[in-house]
């Protein structure tokens, strides 16, 4: 058997090991590549940058731990940027797993990096409510009817930053972090298009192609997968270098990503060559 045919029939477990090494080695070696922002990501950054202090940003965490490596940096970078710009941050979730991710966000970013920001004044965690797109439909008209308390059980009327919130139209920007249904698509359909509210989002790479058609008319901007959030982080750190240590999670993960992609591309090329060589030999014999 020709060597290229042997490569073509390689045990899949060998490929798994090679992919694992392609991820582990760059991670240990801290391989980092430069990241440059694309227009679709820059649009979100520019919008947050242009909002005056005190503006209201709604951050909806519509994902769970299974996609946290992609989604959590998105929630972190938006929170970081919003609080650095003295915007008011409202955190909520359409997924029951969202509050758990919100707690990580609060501990790792809000408390750790912004100890001066006060809960209920600068940021609030409204928690999860059932209803999927029905919830968006409802809070588009009446927010306090649905959110009677925050996630800690504090009455909504006792929270200072909820005073001038009646419904979704009172927000200056809605940012959905999603990995499926309900998620950014539902925010576009049920809040953005209906209420004429600026919607932007960050989604897993699997979901990103489904949302590109909404850009730029229905969706202000989009972070697609780890690459999207890495672009945002790089832009943020460039302007606010104090986040260099804590704010480059996705940028650091793009090294292993690039190496693993290169290995996969090589496997695809080798596999195709092996296929054509084998086909040619079969025809000849």
């Amino acid at each position: 058997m020709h060597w290229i045919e042997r490569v073509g029939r390689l045990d899949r477990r060998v490929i798994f090991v090679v992919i694992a090494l392609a991820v582990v080695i760059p991670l240990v070696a801290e391989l980092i590549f430069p990241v440059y922002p694309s227009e679709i990501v820059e649009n979100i950054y520019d919008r947050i940058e242009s909002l005056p202090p005190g503006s209201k940003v709604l951050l909806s965490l519509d994902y769970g731990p299974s996609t946290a490596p992609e989604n959590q940096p998105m929630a972190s970078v938006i929170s970081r940027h919003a609080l650095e710009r003295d915007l008011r941050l409202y955190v909520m979730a359409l997924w029951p797993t969202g509050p758990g991710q919100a707690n990580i966000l609060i501990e790792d970013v809000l408390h750790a990096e912004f100890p001066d920001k006060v809960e209920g004044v600068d940021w609030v965690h409204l928690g999860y409510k059932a209803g999927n797109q029905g919830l968006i439909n409802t809070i588009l008209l009446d927010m306090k009817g649905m959110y009677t308390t925050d996630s800690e059980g504090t009455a909504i009327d006792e929270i200072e930053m909820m005073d001038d919130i009646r419904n979704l139209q009172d927000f200056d920007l809605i940012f959905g972090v999603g990995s499926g249904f309900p998620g950014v698509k539902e925010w576009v359909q049920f809040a953005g298009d209906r209420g004429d509210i600026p919607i932007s989002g960050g989604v897993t790479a699997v979901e990103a192609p489904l949302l590109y058609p909404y850009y730029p008319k229905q969706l202000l901007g989009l972070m697609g997968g780890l690459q999207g959030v890495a672009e945002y982080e790089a832009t943020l750190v460039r302007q606010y270098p104090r986040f260099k240590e804590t704010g480059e999670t996705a940028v650091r993960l793009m090294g292993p990503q690039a190496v693993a992609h290169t290995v996969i591309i090589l496997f695809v090329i080798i596999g195709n060559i092996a296929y054509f060589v084998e086909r040619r030999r079969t025809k000849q014999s």
Partner: protein
Amino acid sequence: MELSTQIEVWIGAFLTLMIFSFLWKDNFFYKFAEHLFVGVSAAYWMVVGIWSTIFPNLIARLWPSLVRDVVPGAAGGEPQYIFLIPLVFGLLLLTRLLPKIHYLSRWAMALVIGYAAGTNLIRYLQSDLMSQISSTIVPIAVVSDGRLQIGETFSHLVLFLGVFCGLIYFFFSREHKGVLKPASRLGIWILMITFGASFGYTVMARISLLTGRVQYLMGDWLGLL
């Protein structure tokens, strides 16, 4: 190297390795982790639903004094008996568990489906049909300051041809002969490129998740990073 001393990190690490063991072959450890995940997820969703929605949004409105200790912020107001309606419909859903009166659950299902179908139909029509058609209607030749903008013109041309030829490929009322043949061929090419790009994104997502797990195992658990 500093091994984690937190029990939850060790549990997470072992469960991750159990799931990864499927890459070798299907086995008991993989099945155990999979079943554990399904069970824990179901319980988690139920508990979160009760504490975040049923207590503050239903019980606290019907019997505020009952939840004074559980949801202090939601209690204290007057009972709102209008919320008996969702309570009744919610209970009707549970009649599925009682064979003799299980048909009553259909009333609640009818309400849910009717509401969802009604709202979804309008939203999908506006966002995914009308707005998408409107977004596709763009000038093919983009001229700015009296000069043809090559990049934008090319993008708009690709958009127009992609949509037009893609639609022709799905036009089955006439055999794809004559002018329809090259258009439908281009349509299938456009579709294949789209699927390829979509698959590329899927690969990127999976590698991101793998990187996240490796980071957890090597960093949080083994302390190597």
